């Protein structure tokens, strides 16, 4: 112990492995001490999970693609597009299931398009999904006429869903509920976790992320799996877009665009916790919660909203820097 204490390499290693987690724990502890009455309450915790549910679903979907070492930059505009598709269907037909079904279908088609471009045409993921980002965004503007679809065009049931949940217990005059959006996020987490950690499909994705060429030579159907991974990401993005549209009871052609960078940030934060720096969906969850807790706690402390962005950026850079320096050290 006394020896390792002064060894900079082991300190770095510690930070690489546990820096993000330590940071998360300190944030929880700090906010709890500073906000003794309102932070660590059942209501606030469910509140945070509800607020982060949309980002969580996008980040889980992003984890699938990043497991292969790829990116999907189009998830944010796909989320916007899915919301618009649903809202336009609602406006024209008033049918909630049809709107949801077509929005998810749009996500699946968009994801397959991404996968096809990357896998079969051989375009770099960054370039291919940057292209489809623009296409999806343009389609969302085209379908909506650039306007926000809201009010009577959105069926009551769709908007009410995001406000509802399963009542759990009574806290004073307020009933604490398990929000519907949180339930969707948890189900998504369970599915993605099962697919990535328990199925051959997931193991193959990580093998491709380690070395795509070796994976191909080992007989893994690299192209087909890559297509499926992007399709799943598109579907996840569309689901998040629907959750967002339900929460704001409206659809706007740009409303999902903020999700993409936050999702990548969450996966990166999660990667800093993994043993070998690979994206694991449970670690992504910690990344998402860290971002959510930070926003919630700092708002409650009345810290300027722009300070929050700086802190988030600094944490990401510090966490990734520790990992990078550790690698240099080991070499």
């Amino acid at each position, binding site marked *: 112990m006394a020896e390792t204490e002064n060894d900079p390499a082991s*300190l770095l290693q510690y930070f690489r492995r546990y820096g993000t987690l330590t940071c998360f724990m300190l944030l929880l502890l700090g906010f709890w001490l*500073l906000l003794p009455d309102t932070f660590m309450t059942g209501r606030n915790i469910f509140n945070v999970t509800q607020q982060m549910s949309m980002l969580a679903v996008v980040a889980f979907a992003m984890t699938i693609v990043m497991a292969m070492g790829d990116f999907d930059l189009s998830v944010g505009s796909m989320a916007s597009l899915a919301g618009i598709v649903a809202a336009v269907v609602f406006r024209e037909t008033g049918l909630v299931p049809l709107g949801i079904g077509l929005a998810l279908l749009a996500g699946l088609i968009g994801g397959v398009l991404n996968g096809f471009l990357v896998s079969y045409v051989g375009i770099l993921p960054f370039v291919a999904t940057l292209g489809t980002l623009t296409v999806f965004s343009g389609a969302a503007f085209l379908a909506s006429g650039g306007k926000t679809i809201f009010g009577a065009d959105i069926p009551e049931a769709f*908007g009410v869903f995001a406000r509802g949940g399963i009542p759990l217990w009574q806290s004073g005059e307020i009933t604490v509920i398990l929000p519907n959006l949180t339930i969707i996020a948890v189900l998504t987490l369970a599915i993605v976790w099962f697919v990535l950690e328990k199925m051959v499909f997931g193991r193959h994705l990580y093998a491709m992320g380690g070395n795509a060429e070796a994976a191909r030579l080992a007989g893994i159907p690299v192209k087909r799996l890559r297509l499926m991974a992007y399709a799943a990401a598109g579907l996840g993005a569309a689901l998040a877009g629907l959750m*967002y549209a339900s929460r*704001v009871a*409206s659809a706007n052609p740009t409303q999902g665009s903020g999700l993409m960078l936050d999702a990548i940030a969450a996966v990166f934060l999660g990667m800093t916790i993994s043993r070998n720096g690979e994206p694991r969906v449970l670690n992504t969850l910690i990344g998402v919660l860290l971002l959510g807790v930070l926003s*919630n706690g700092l*708002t409650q402390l*009345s810290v300027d909203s722009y300070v929050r962005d700086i802190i988030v950026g600094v944490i990401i850079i510090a966490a990734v820097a520790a990992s990078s320096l550790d690698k240099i050290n080991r070499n």
Partner: protein
Amino acid sequence: MKRRNIVGALAAVAMMAASHAAAAADKIAVITPYLAQPGTQFYVEAFQAKAKDFGWEVNVVDTKGDVAAAIARIEDAANQKVSAIVINVDPSQVAAGLEAAKAAGVPVFGMDAGATPLLVTNVTSNGYSMAADTAAYVTNRIGGKGNVVMFVFDAFPPVQQRGVIADTIFKNNPGIKVLDRVTPDVQDGGIADSRAKMEAILSANPEKGAISAVWAAWDQPALGALQAIEAAGRTGEGIVITGIDANPQAREAIGKGGNFEASMAQDFKGIGATVADAVKRHLSGEKIKQGVIYVPTKLITSANVNE
């Protein structure tokens, strides 16, 4: 190793505690996705100036266009039990947050947000009176007689109410005939299509003096009509144009002293200050009866456009 972490934790907590020390004053959260827009900045600055006088601790949260994040921040502020929340966002889009605030017993005020029972009150400009001022200006300038072209947009309630008032005023003057009541296509912002529509009307009414005035429910159609009149070379006929909103482009046109003679300026600072007054009244126990509080607007002509 462990000791380092604990020291670090304590330092972080101490720093945050220090920034949190002054907590006795009333806390007000101002939440908007639109702080980057000039109008919103005026509201918020005026609100903050008043809040300083009242000794409030104001936290302005800008979610940079993200409406779902605005809901999240309203929920956080409600959880934190702030004294009041002020929003500048369509209440129907943040209903989830407003219900959380209601459940927590935290009052919410609208700063040009839209009316809903979930708000204590909403402070905004009076669309009816803005339309009355410009329609009366037109009537006055053309001496109560002549043909008037109206540009309206009945699909959008705040603009529809302006048209209704102008209709009434023109109807009340037997000498005035509404030549056309045009709804422009607003996909491109409203100027280009309004110009095209106005060009068609000018062609259909070629003789001098056939059109006395253009009354527009907002500035863009007024600017489009101005362009059409200029392009047709009919600026010398004395056609009077009025708009509403007094946006920079409209002010520039009014300043030149041409056909575009008048528009209405909303008092953004007045709205911000009035919200602060409303919050103050509510916090001191007064029950605010009006669901909407109107702040007076101002007629802008070449006489006061540069003020």
